């Protein structure tokens, strides 16, 4: 059995003196589309931030293709291809869509291919091509999310982590974005998605973890014949 693509092993961390994650473990490898679900404030975002290097772990480890990246410099993690799209991200509000996307290809690996990738991003999100000369702060929530994801794609991700990509969007936009993410997965990029919407979660992932109070309390395969209602009950019953 080969080493998993990304492995978080017994990770504990928090902010200041407040612990948030308690020896949490998840794995991306056997399943190439995994999800994190759970109530707000219970550590999903913190976990992603620890993986991408924005927060330092207190204990435990994180392995990217077998190499430890716990506490590594975010720039190195990006260079290795692990790209994190943060939640409700306004990216760079006073720069145009085109500038934002171009910045996505900042890292060396991505720079060479940036022209080609830009075309792919515009193909995926035609609205962005229309608005490419507009400042990001003038865009709607949905369009901003597209820019965030687009910039992440420009970075040539080997693994893509999305934190609540459809948060705060209208149902129509949610579906649109969900389809786009499905297409990204289909193109072969392994993904970790944090989502509140169970239905989307089931569409976008093969396997997901239920995170409650900084710990994994349940794991499911998305194709298990568990119906949505049961999962919702488990999910809501925890609060």
């Amino acid at each position, binding site marked *: 059995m080969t080493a998993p693509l990304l492995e978080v092993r017994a990770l504990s961390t928090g902010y200041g003196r407040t612990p948030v994650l308690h020896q949490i473990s998840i794995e991306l490898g056997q399943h190439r589309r995994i999800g994190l679900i759970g109530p707000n404030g219970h550590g999903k975002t913190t976990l992603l931030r620890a993986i991408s290097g924005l927060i330092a772990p207190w204990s435990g480890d994180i392995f990217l293709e077998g190499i430890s990246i716990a506490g590594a410099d975010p*720039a190195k993690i990006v260079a290795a291809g692990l790209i994190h799209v*943060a939640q409700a*991200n306004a*990216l760079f509000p006073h720069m145009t869509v085109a500038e934002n996307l171009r*910045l996505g290809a*900042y890292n060396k690996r991505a720079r060479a291919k940036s022209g080609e990738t830009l075309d792919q991003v515009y193909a995926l999100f035609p609205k962005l091509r229309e608005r490419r000369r507009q400042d990001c702060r003038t865009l709607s929530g949905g369009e901003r999310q597209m820019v965030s994801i687009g910039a992440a794609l420009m970075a040539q991700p080997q693994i893509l982590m999305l934190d609540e990509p459809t948060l705060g969007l209208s149902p129509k936009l949610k579906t649109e974005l969900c389809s786009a993410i499905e297409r990204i997965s289909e193109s072969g990029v392994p993904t970790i998605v944090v989502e509140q919407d169970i239905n989307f979660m089931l569409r976008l992932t093969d396997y997901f973890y239920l995170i409650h109070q900084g710990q994994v309390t349940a794991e499911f395969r998305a194709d298990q014949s568990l119906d949505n209602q049961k999962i919702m009950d488990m999910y809501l019953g925890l609060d």
Partner: protein
Amino acid sequence: MAWIDAILAAAQPILVSGIVLASLYALMATGLALVWNTLGIFNFSHGIFMTLGAFVAWQFADARGYGLGLSVGIAVSVAALAGLGVLFNRVLIAPFLGRKDIVLVAVMTTLAGAFFLENSALLTWGPRIKQLERILPGNIKLMGSAISLHEFLIIILAPLVLLALWAFLKWTRPGSAIRAVGQNRDSALLLGIRVNAIYALTFAISAALAGGAGVLLGAIRFITPTMGTEPLLKAFIVVILGGLGSFGGTIVSAYLVGFMEAISTYFFGAYWTQAVMFGLFIVILVVLPRGLMGRD
């Protein structure tokens, strides 16, 4: 019609001195604004950077220093100030960036830094006044009044430098990275931008701009350890008036302030002008905390 003549007669020297002042303020204020926009701190040492720019240039250029000529002096000065900016960031800003009260802490560390550097300058070069050579000797006639070529050069050079800076920020990778870091540090990190290096670069550019302004000023004013204090305070006024966060606002405001000062000095004299400018500063801050074009 005599009053029209009077206005016209007054207009020329006012216009000229106004533009010269404005050009220098634009250089100073832009450096200050750059650091504020990118790092979120207000650098109280910006004035001493200007002073040191003049001193270092003098040291290398003047016969009583190393006598290597003005070109060498200027080149060394700009390079040295850029290096100083990097060092400054490393020692006085970077270690404190995580703190909640970083703005206040940075005021204190940069104030301490200014204190340190000003007294170092005093120790190294002494209080006796010095002056740099003008870049271009002689005068020319501009709009009917004579102005030194050096001052004329300032008027031309400042917008060119600022244009170059703008182009750098807009079109180059490191320039875009600087803008990005100022707008969303986390996103910049997540795209692989080395934020610490960007901070160092920003400080280097800021210090070099101040140093350059110092070199230009050093030829038309006297070089003393405290020569940068007043320009620093003017830069404060310019940056706030223009609105923190707006590059264009800073430049517009620099020219406005330069002219206001020139007009006021002509009609009310230098001493009152200073007081009036500060009073104006306070009023602006109260009425329009975001300045003319601010967006923070």
